[in-house]
Structures are given as C-alpha cells and as structure tokens.
C-alpha cells in the first residue's frame, strides 16, 4: 500500500530526510518513531504530496507521489497534531466540504457520515460550530475529515498531541478499528507507549535516517520489553 524508495528531502545543505526506504502493507500499522525534528513530519508531507522529494520516490496505493499527486491524495488521509478545521463552520459542514472533493456526496455522504460518527462517537457534535467544540471533539472532526472517503492509506502524525486522556484513548481505539478494515496506517509519534499499543511494525528515524526497522515484537526484545529503551540503544549503536 505504501512503499518508499530512497526518499530524501534536502533544504540547501541540510538533509531533513535521508534515503528513506520502507514498506507498509494492507491491514498494517507502521510506527514511524523518532524525536522531534527527526524528519517524521517531512516524510509524511512528502507522502501526502505536500512536499516534493529532493531524491527518490514513493508509491501510495499504487500511485507515484511525483507523477500522480492528485491520485495519491484521493487515496490518502492525513492528520497531524497541528491540523485544524474551519471554526466558523459546523462539524457537518466541514465534513461535507472535504468529502465533496472525493466525490462523497448526496446519499453516499449521509451513509459515510453515519459510519464515521459511529466509529468516532461524535454524532452529538455534528451541528455545533467547530469553535464551540472541545479540543477532543475538534480532533475527532479532523480525523473524520481525513477518513470520510475511506482512504486505503491513513497518515497520523503526532495525532494525540494536546488531547486529554479520553480523547487519546478514543483515537488509539480508532487506529486499531481502522486497521481491522484492511487499511494501511503510518503512525508517527515520539511517544513510544502509544506505538507499543497500536503498531505492528516500527521504524526508528533519527536525523532523517532510518536507523532500525522491524516488527514491534523484535523491537521490544531489543529493548528488553521496552520500546523506548530499544530506541535509545539502537541510536547509540548507530552513532
């Protein structure tokens, strides 16, 4: 579903992402783990065709990010921690607006809306203006916007940032439910405990480079049952 080949991003003399190659299959959650500034957001933005790679390329749902950016966007949803939706619109208006770009309109929209509100437990806030919603509800609206067209690939970048314990729990539950639908998810975070809970495979990224890749169980073994310890050990070995 997602395959990157030597994916790189360079800003003048600074390499934000350096020859990243990994693969994410259907029904799999891939954890892209690393500290702040490691290159996670840049990688996901390249996959979402928001940034142009300096070198290398990637395939998302069978479409090349360089050659077919609009097709890639049609088959992808992206959520990041800083992402928001229009606060002067209601939840329903926001979702209708974004869904229309994917051809999800009319009765199809109604069905999808029912599905997404049930999945995210947010039906009671649909007709509220976004600015009147709680942080958790806003984040659910952001996620609903990203999945209403049921994309085969979903990118989550620090998606739990700023969420309270209930909203965070709901999001992690959603990740597992969405995966069970056969979707591919890339879960980018620096919070290792979250990755432990939802990821099937993980890739450790530091200074733009992939320094480790393996199943979550392998990574846990590397850190004696602790993903954070595994991450630090792998980084020390790489240095």
């Amino acid at each position, binding site marked *: 579903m997602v395959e990157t080949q030597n994916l790189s991003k360079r800003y003048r003399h600074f390499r934000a992402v350096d020859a990243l190659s990994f693969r994410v299959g259907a029904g799999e959650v891939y954890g892209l783990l690393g500290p702040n500034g490691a290159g996670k957001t840049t990688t996901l933005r390249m996959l979402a065709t928001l940034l142009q790679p300096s070198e290398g390329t990637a395939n998302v749902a069978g479409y090349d990010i360089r050659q077919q950016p609009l097709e890639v*966007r049609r088959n992808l949803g992206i959520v990041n921690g800083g992402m928001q939706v229009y606060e002067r*619109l209601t939840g329903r208006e926001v979702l209708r607006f974004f869904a229309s770009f994917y051809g999800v309109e009319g009765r199809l929209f109604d069905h999808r809306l029912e599905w997404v509100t049930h999945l995210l437990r947010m039906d009671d806030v649909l007709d509220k203006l976004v600015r009147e919603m709680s942080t958790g509800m806003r984040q659910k609206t952001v996620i609903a916007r990203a999945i209403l067209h049921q994309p085969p690939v979903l990118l989550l970048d620090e998606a739990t940032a700023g969420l309270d314990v209930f909203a965070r729990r709901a999001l992690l539950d959603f990740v597992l439910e969405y995966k069970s639908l056969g979707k591919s998810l890339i879960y980018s975070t620096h919070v290792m405990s979250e990755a432990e809970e939802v990821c099937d495979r993980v890739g450790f990224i530091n200074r733009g480079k992939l320094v480790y890749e393996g199943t979550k169980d392998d990574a846990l073994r590397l850190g004696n049952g602790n993903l954070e310890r595994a991450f630090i050990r792998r980084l020390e070995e790489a240095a």
Partner: protein
Amino acid sequence: MSAVVRIYIKEMLSVLRERRVIFTTLILPILLMPILMYGPLLFFGNAARQTQEKVQQVGVQDVPEAALQRLRQAKVEPIPTQSPEADVREQKVQAAVRFQGGTFTIYGRLSGATQSSLVVSKLETALRNYKDELVAQTLRTKGLSTEILEPVQIRTQDASRVQERAAGIFAFLIPYFLVIFILNGGQAVAIDSTAGEKEKGTLEALLAAPVPLSQIVIGKALATLTVALTAALAGVIGIVLGGTVVRGLFAPLLQRQNANIGGGLSLEPWAYGALLATSILFAALMVSVQLSLGVYARSYKEAQSLMAPLLLVFIIPLLMLQFSDFLTQQSWFYLIPAFNVMLLLDGLVKGSAQPWQVTLTWISTLAYAALALGLAVRSFRREDVVFRN
C-alpha cells in the same frame, strides 16, 4: 459543483458568520460615509451662515465715522482699540481694522478654516461697499455717471459637464473611496483565507485534498473579490445615499448657504457599467496581490503589516488625483498599474473618459490581474512559502 465553487461558498460562509467583518466592511461605510463627508461641510456652512447673521465685535483704530456706519450696517460692532493686531492674535476679537494714511488694514487669523476669516470677509465686503460709495460720490460731484466704472460686464458661467456638477466637490472622492474600500474590504478576507488559515492550521488539510492549487486560489480570490466589491459598493452607496438624504433634509439650509454639495452620480448607463467593470478589474488585481502577500506571511499580524504599505502606495496617486486637471494627460498614464484605474474612475465620474482611455486601462489591468493571479498560484505552490512558520 466544481471545487472553485465549493471553496468560494466555504469562504463566503466563513465571512458571513463573522459579524465583525460584515460590520466593518459593509455596514460601517454606509453609516459612516455620509457623516464623514457631509457632516463637516454642513457644520462649516452653518457656522458661516451664523457668522453672517450674527453681530461680532471687531477692534477699530482711527476708522472714520462714515466707515463705522458701514460696518454697523454689516452687523459688526466696532470696539475702539490701540492694539488691533495684538487683540486679534490674542483672540480678544475675531478681527480688527486700522485706518492710516488712506489705507484700511484688516487684521484676522487667516490660517485654515477659522471663524476669524469669515469675519474678515464680512469686513472686506463692508469696506469695499464704503469705497464704492466714496467713488460714486466723487463722480456725482463732477457730474459723471457711475456707469463709466463698468464699461463692460463680466459674467462667469460653469461649463463643466452635468456629471461633474452632480459629483461636485466629491468628484475625486468617489474614485478615492472606491479604491480605498476595495483595498480595505478585500484585506480581511484575503488574510483570513491565507495567513489566517496557516496560523489556525486549516490550510494543510485543504492543500492535502485532491484539488489543483489553481482552483483553490481562484475560489479564495473570488470570495475576496466579492467582499471587496461589496465593500466598495457599500461605500459608494453611502456617499450617494448620503448626498441624496442631505440634499433632501437640509434643502433650506443649503439654499441659504448657496452650496452645491454634490455627492451625486449622474452618469450615462454605459458609464455605470464601465465604473463597475473597472472596479472589478482593479479588485481582481488587488485581491491577487493580497493573496500572494497573505500566503507568504506566517501569521495574521504579519500579513497585516505586509499589506499596510499597499495602502500607502495608493494614497499618493489618489491624493494627486484632485490635481488631475493640472496634469497633461499622456496615454502611458493609462498603463501604470492602479494609477490608470484611478484616472479612469475620475474620468468616468466626471463624464470625461474617452474610449481609448477605457480600452488601455481595461486591457492593461486585466493583464496585471492575470499576472498577479499567476503569482498567487505560484506562491501557494512554493513549499518554502506555504510551510513558512
């Protein structure tokens, strides 16, 4: 429904739900323009009339009794003084007269629109009449008719166009406010839909949607254009409606003041269309520039500071517009971005616009607007601009 229309509707919905924007860009101009434009004029006119009708004390020094009589007839109360100039300077009296060596010297505070200057003109009229009377007396004693003083008559006739007369002293102010309101009205929406979206974190979600960037920019530009033009229309309605209301409500007062306040538009139907088309083209140019600047800015505040000079850039040519009569108009003036629009709007309001001026302005402004729109799309495409935060 195309993506452009969807984005347009979304932007308009956001604008309509923001009462502050609606009030400042649409309602305030209609309410404020009549007060701003006609208020001072009516106030000054009324003050001038009252000065004419009421009696004012003026200092006099060595003024002959016959002249004092004339002053009293002109509703002035002479007060003897030994220091006429100082009395006026210290505002003990509004004006003073001194007679010495066959010369009347009138003292007044003549800088700006002062009440003193109105009293001075009252004194000038009274003393001129006194002088004419003396001349007439002398002629009569010599057996001559006063008609020899006026061997010919001089008459002045206003030959300006009907449109120019209708607009009156506001002929240059109508294009002035049209431009200002287009700039001002579009600014809030342009910033909100670019830097505002960046700051709030909504732009990335929109850019990640499967919509070509050009359609996103056009949708935003159309919404900004709509608000800018509506604001401009509200401003012009404020001026024209204000003029009509003031003429109706204060007709007797204006008649007494013998004042033509103008503020009306009396154009041929095609000129109204041309006025609208010119405004649309200018707004399209400005909106594209504002979107480019807006998307470059990191935040709402930075966008405001980037756009502030834009207004200043237009103030100078706009102020020059009141002296446009002294300019020898050259055809290349109508190729200068924005200035051409101001000149043409001025010509349209005064009814003096020529077809070649319209053609040059429209074609060049259309080209500049297309160029600016291209620049805006390019700005949205640039990673270092969109993710500059």
